[in-house]
């Protein structure tokens, strides 16, 4: 039944599907692991029990998300071989050792200390337990570093030569790892993970502020998340801009697709805000443009010439429509996050951060926005790299395993069914855990006065409120 489909297309869909599901979990667990370390540090430092309560609340959610990340990640580590064997054979000598280092320096560290972090507080005491939490957080960041070095090398390969078997062989490991796009991509992704987590935590806090059952806990997490949004969103936009300039230098075709520039503009290119890329006619229909702005952003000069896709052979064009749209989705979400950060600063200044219901509703709506932005960003950079797997050197069509369409089609269907069932259930459990924030402890049980300014005293809490496990 799959003979009508192209085996390459099916393998690409399978990779895109499994990696898209996978990236959601690391994007969350990188940020959440750091957040947990901060919460536990604040608890140890300030001895305020609210931080421990929040730590325990998010720890359970982390465990579910981390488990999903682990199992979907194992799939990735084998899928290179099962479906992209030629790529693995050729690029393995360069990217394989980087992934080997990821396992040795990060995965074992996370896995080794995760058990202690989840189950070991009573066994090892708070200080060693904090060390375990910090190690898990550190591990997620090390992992991001290596895997982004791998991906960046595929985007902007450097430090290699080819051997007679057609393999990429390393000449200079420093140049391989610190390839031209690596620092930009690493910063952009780690900040994206932090922002994604900030909006999940903020959305959860805002939800409970609206429900008014646990105002102190809810306010504490909401306030922390909004600080994060206000500080990190502008940095992220700056980092993204720098990343874009780097891409223009090393992968111009990707930027042409992002901008929708089918044609070259010898004296100042317009910024196309919106429009519908028309692949057949090689133009953007219904374009809303601001003249010369694209040249100003990309070249810092209104009249700078910008080359378009007409300067590149058509068989080397990335799919413009997908890249054009995914880039705009990411941008709109990024600027919305900035807007919310500014709004929250204003509310904080006015002392209404804990009471402004419209802010809370908006942040609840924005709760999953980070995931969308992360996915859109990855679609932009990965689809924008096409038609190559190793940019400029190895075509996607030449990277594939000799597996027939029926086999790839069957595995793709199996992945789709299993992922929707398993990760659908996991998402449901996480949402339910988020909805069950235990009520605030009785005031007399608190260690000290409520420190956070601006929170409204909550309604009196009934005794014997049920604390879930």
């Amino acid at each position, binding site marked *: 039944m799959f003979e009508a489909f192209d085996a390459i297309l099916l393998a690409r869909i399978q990779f895109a599907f499994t990696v898209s599901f996978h990236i959601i979990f690391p994007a969350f667990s990188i940020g959440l692991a750091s957040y947990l370390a901060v919460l536990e540090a604040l608890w140890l430092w300030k001895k305020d029990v609210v931080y421990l309560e929040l730590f325990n609340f998010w720890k359970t959610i982390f465990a579910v998300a981390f488990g999903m990340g682990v199992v979907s990640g194992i799939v990735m580590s084998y899928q290179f071989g099962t479906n992209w064997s030629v790529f693995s054979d050729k690029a393995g000598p360069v990217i394989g050792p980087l992934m080997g280092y990821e396992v040795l320096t990060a*995965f074992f560290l996370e896995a*080794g200390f995760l058990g202690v972090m989840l189950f070991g507080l009573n066994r090892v005491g708070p200080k060693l337990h904090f060390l375990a939490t910090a190690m898990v957080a550190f591990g997620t960041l090390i992992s991001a570093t290596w895997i982004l070095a791998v991906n960046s090398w595929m985007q902007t390969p450097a430090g290699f030569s080819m051997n007679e078997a057609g393999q990429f062989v390393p000449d200079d490991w420093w140049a391989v790892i610190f390839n031209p796009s690596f620092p930009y991509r690493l910063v952009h992704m780690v900040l994206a993970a932090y922002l994604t987590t900030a909006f999940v935590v903020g959305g959860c806090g805002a939800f409970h502020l609206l429900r008014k059952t646990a105002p102190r806990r809810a306010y504490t997490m909401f306030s922390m998340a909004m600080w994060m949004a206000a500080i990190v969103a502008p940095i992220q936009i700056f980092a993204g801009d720098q990343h874009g300039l780097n891409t223009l230098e090393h992968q111009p075709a990707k930027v042409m697709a992002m901008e929708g520039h089918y044609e070259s503009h010898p004296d100042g290119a317009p910024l196309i805000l919106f429009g519908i890329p028309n692949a057949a006619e090689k133009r953007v229909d219904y374009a809303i443009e601001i003249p010369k702005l694209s040249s100003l952003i990309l070249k810092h000069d209104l009249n700078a010439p910008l080359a378009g896709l007409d300067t590149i052979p058509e068989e080397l064009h990335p799919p413009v429509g997908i890249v054009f749209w995914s880039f705009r989705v990411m941008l709109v979400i990024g600027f919305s996050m900035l807007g919310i950060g500014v709004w929250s600063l204003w509310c904080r200044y006015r002392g209404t951060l804990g009471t402004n219901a419209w802010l809370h509703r908006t942040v609840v709506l924005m709760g999953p926005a980070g995931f969308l932005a992360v996915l859109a960003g990855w679609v932009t950079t990965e689809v924008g790299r096409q038609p190559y797997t190793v940019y400029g050197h190895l075509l996607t069509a030449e990277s594939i395993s000799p597996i027939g369409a029926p086999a790839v089609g069957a595995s793709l269907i199996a992945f789709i069914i299993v992922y929707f069932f398993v990760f659908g259930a996991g998402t449901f459990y996480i949402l339910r855990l988020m909805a069950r924030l235990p009520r605030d402890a009785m005031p007399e049980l608190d260690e000290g006065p409520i420190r956070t300014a601006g929170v409204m005293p909550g309604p009196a809490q009934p005794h014997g409120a049920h604390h879930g496990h």
Partner: protein
Amino acid sequence: MDIDLPLIWAALIAFAVLAYVVLDGFDLGVGILFPLFPEKHDRDVMMNSVAPVWDGNETWLVLGGGGLMAVFPLAYATVLPALYAPIIAMLLGLIFRGVAFEYRWRTRRGEFLWNWAFAGGSMLAAFSQGLALGALVQGIPIANRTYVGGWWDWLTPFSIVTGLAIVVGYALLGATWLVMKTRGPLAEHARSIALRCSFATIAAMGIVSLWTPFLEPVYLERWFGWPTAIFSVIVPLLVLGCLYLLLKGIRDRHDTQPFIASLGLFLLGYIGIGISFYPYIIPPSLTIWDAAAPDDSLAFLLVGALVLVPIILAYTGYAYWVFRGKVDPEEGYH
């Protein structure tokens, strides 16, 4: 370069795979035994006995895969397409049983679902690993850096036997782990299961060992030709020694001895496969040196491995030590 880097790496990858097999072996085994323990309370304890360590155990599988790509890319790029169906099945099995560790505690209504996912996923993963092992032992044809066999070559009577052998063997590891980590009726039940699994495992090892030499002339020469035939005497004797310690440990109601003796059985079986394979990494097509990445890649990762693997073993050992002793049925964050 004077140092034989591919050989060192073959030993390291072999170590990673062995570590995976025995470590994930016992926690997959606990999953395989789930249907034999219908009580919810028993199942809670069983799961808690492996919950803090399963993730670390499975990381050895990622090291095996990632490491293979790094140091033997040609082996990685040919064996995985050849074993496409069992590998995908293994990954799906690991997904089901991996998420069950957390999901099972998140719902009462759906708990039965995740009990099934845990047991079924563990069995599927174990059986697929056994199928893959059997298919690899049978041999994988490669030409021009590509797998050239058929898409169902992995499915043979021999690979089905190795699949069942791995399921039974993991069940033995799981049962003896439970003997070591639990108390009371649960441990008693595990002990009686361990006894039955011991006989089944030995029978499976016997069948596979007698069958293997007749699959490839190389194996026959290895096991019946001088001087390597000496292993044909030593390895079975050691297996019998382990079996004796295993049965004696079970009979004497010893806590740890059965588990250690089971690990010994796995180690010996593994060494037996190693003796058959050497110098091939994929018999009969690729030797260790055919498949190796350039020395620059091998050396770069080796530096890290020599420093990091001992550190990993140290903190993994620490994590096991933190959760040492019998599982307290009342403990656990769940």
